């Protein structure tokens, strides 16, 4: 029997029992929709989380290059030159290279009092620092400070306000608490700081700065660091007979987060050679660390993989139930059409013809179910995302992600489910004894 005739006969039967077959289609639809919804939602959540954590907070697209034993606040050993930067910019997959440097011998003063142990740095990428409040530095005369410095300023303000009878321990405690709240920002932003440092002419110089931002209070960011405009940077080294500016660290941004590993390898290769200025300055003894968050990104993806797997397993149970539903309907159909099977066999149908007919019917039901399931799954995930955003206000928006490969897999799954659920009923139909079938009432 030709494919078109088989299809026509199968379709005429499906149409003939609209309610029953619609329910069978629905059972597959629910299963496939569950799977698609789970995958769409977890993919969306993962992408949202990766965006928040890695791009904004952890800078997962950034590879940091530092000198070993000097990573702390990106250290004080200044060995990376502009020539190194230029070279890294030519590497494949690198989007941009920024530097972090240290202002030479910088100390900070608030209302005439020296603040303890702050490190004043510069960066050519003002957006590198996630801020809790305020804005990034826009030019000379501005400074963003870490939580530790903010706390010191807060303590000084309190001391000044309370005078001699102040309880130092209490003030320390309240200011520490304040760094965890937004209240501190109001007191600190706009305050003046004085910076004493050594300029390019190797002279001690003083500058008035205004605090414009507070660096996010996070575990991995040094609390005692402040950032100013790159023009305050003045450290140089003698290289090739002339003094060139040198920096403590490089920040290499990759165009594609999945290329982290290969770019990292290339950077390591470059700094292993004496053609790089950093290696020339350091000699062979000291290692240069090239650090990526590839591990963290992988870990996050792995964890989401597990969540998807777990939820997916539940969804697959729904699909399994759907499959049993289709099988049940097919068994009823075969039983009901026993006589018809007898007629077909008497008029020349082989077992294969009969098998094909019923299998086609099951596959047709499941394919329709799968197709509708994909649509329903997409709808469900849109709904779920809206609901989540409504329930937990202030969340970063969860994107609706198209997962075409999964749609294809879903349709393919429909096909497989059709075959699996149809094969036994179709097989039992095929081996029906034609004489008994013709007598069947």
């Amino acid at each position, binding site marked *: 029997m*030709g494919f078109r*005739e088989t299809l026509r006969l199968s379709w005429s*039967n499906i149409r003939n029992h609209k309610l029953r077959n619609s329910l069978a289609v629905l059972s597959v639809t629910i299963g496939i929709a569950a799977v698609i919804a789970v995958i769409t939602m977890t993919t969306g959540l993962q992408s949202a989380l990766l965006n928040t954590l890695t791009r904004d907070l952890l800078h997962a697209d950034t590879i940091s290059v530092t000198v070993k034993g000097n990573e702390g606040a990106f250290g004080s050993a200044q060995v990376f030159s502009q020539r190194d930067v230029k070279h890294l910019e030519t590497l494949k997959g690198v989007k941009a290279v920024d530097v972090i440097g240290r202002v030479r011998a910088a100390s900070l003063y608030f209302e005439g009092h020296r603040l303890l142990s702050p490190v004043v740095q510069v960066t050519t990428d003002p957006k590198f620092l996630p801020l809790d409040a305020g804005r990034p530095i826009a030019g000379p005369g501005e400074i963003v400070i870490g939580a530790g410095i903010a706390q010191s300023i807060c303590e000084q303000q309190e001391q000044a306000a309370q005078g001699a009878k102040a309880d130092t321990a209490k003030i320390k405690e309240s200011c520490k608490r304040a760094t965890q709240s937004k209240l501190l920002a109001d007191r600190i932003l706009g305050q003046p700081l004085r910076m004493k440092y050594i300029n390019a002419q190797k002279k001690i110089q003083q500058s008035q700065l205004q605090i414009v931002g507070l660096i996010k209070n996070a575990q991995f960011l040094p609390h005692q660091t402040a950032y100013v405009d790159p023009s305050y940077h003045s450290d140089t080294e003698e290289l090739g007979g002339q003094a060139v500016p040198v920096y403590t660290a490089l920040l290499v941004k990759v165009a594609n987060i999945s290329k982290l590993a290969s770019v990292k390898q290339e950077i390591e290769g470059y700094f292993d050679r004496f053609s790089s200025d950093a290696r020339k300055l350091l000699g062979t003894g000291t290692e240069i660390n090239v650090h990526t968050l590839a591990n963290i990104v992988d870990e996050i993806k792995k964890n989401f993989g597990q969540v998807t797997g777990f939820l997916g397993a539940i969804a697959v149970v729904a699909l399994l139930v759907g499959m049993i539903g289709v099988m049940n309907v097919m068994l009823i159909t075969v039983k009901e059409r026993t006589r018809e099977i007898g007629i077909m066999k*008497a*008029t*020349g149908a082989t*077992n294969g013809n009969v098998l094909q007919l019923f299998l086609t019917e099951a596959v047709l039901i499941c394919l329709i179910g799968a197709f509708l399931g994909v649509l329903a799954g997409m709808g469900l995930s849109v709904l779920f995302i809206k609901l989540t955003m409504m329930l937990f206000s202030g969340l970063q928006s969860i994107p609706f992600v198209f997962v075409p490969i999964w749609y294809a897999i879903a349709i393919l799954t429909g096909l497989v489910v059709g075959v699996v659920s149809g094969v036994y009923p179709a097989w039992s139909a095929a081996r029906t004894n034609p004489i008994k079938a013709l007598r069947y009432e």
Partner: protein
Amino acid sequence: MARVVKAEHLSKVYRMGQVDVEALHDVSLALEEGELIAIMGPSGSGKSTLMHLIGCLDQPTSGELIVNGEKVSQLNDRELARLRGRAIGFVFQTFNLIPRVNALTNVLMPMGFTHLLPPREREERARSLLEQVGLGSRLKHMPSELSGGERQRVAIARALANDPKLILADEPTGNLDTKSGAQIMELFDQLNERGHTIVVVTHDPNIAQHAQRIVHLLDGRVQDASEVSLGIS
């Protein structure tokens, strides 16, 4: 004349629980091309069993059966289906049309199994067959929209779909009124005149009168030995 069916010492034993029931016992029979014969006998005499064997729906327990030149006992399921499709057309007492497709599609179905004609020519043939049985204006009617006599004529058109040598009719008039029954038998006569070999199983002597030869069965044995020997000669 070519021999369409040759049966020698056929017997068929069914196992019903613990006991064996012999439905046919040592039946020998030959059918020449162009014959119209009737198989008669009371219920339980084995006429249906004989027809199922000749129709290749079942295999004999012993004896030899040749249908359209092929030894039935040597064929597998697939080859039997092929033989049924190409050499045999069935007409049943209860018509046995597929209820959810129209007359034309019912007639088309057996052609789909045999692939004797290219798909484009099949519909043309189905139409002309239905016209032959007088249903040219009822092509698109569903079986439920047709009378008993009309349904049986669709069934006959379907039996002719692959132009088989042999038509097997099991009580073809059993569910019809006298007038429709007569029309059906008239149709069989016409087909026989055109060279089709026809076997009609019946217990109605009036129907059997159309046959050139009558084979009487009783308790699984052929009753009238003279008829049988005449057939074999």
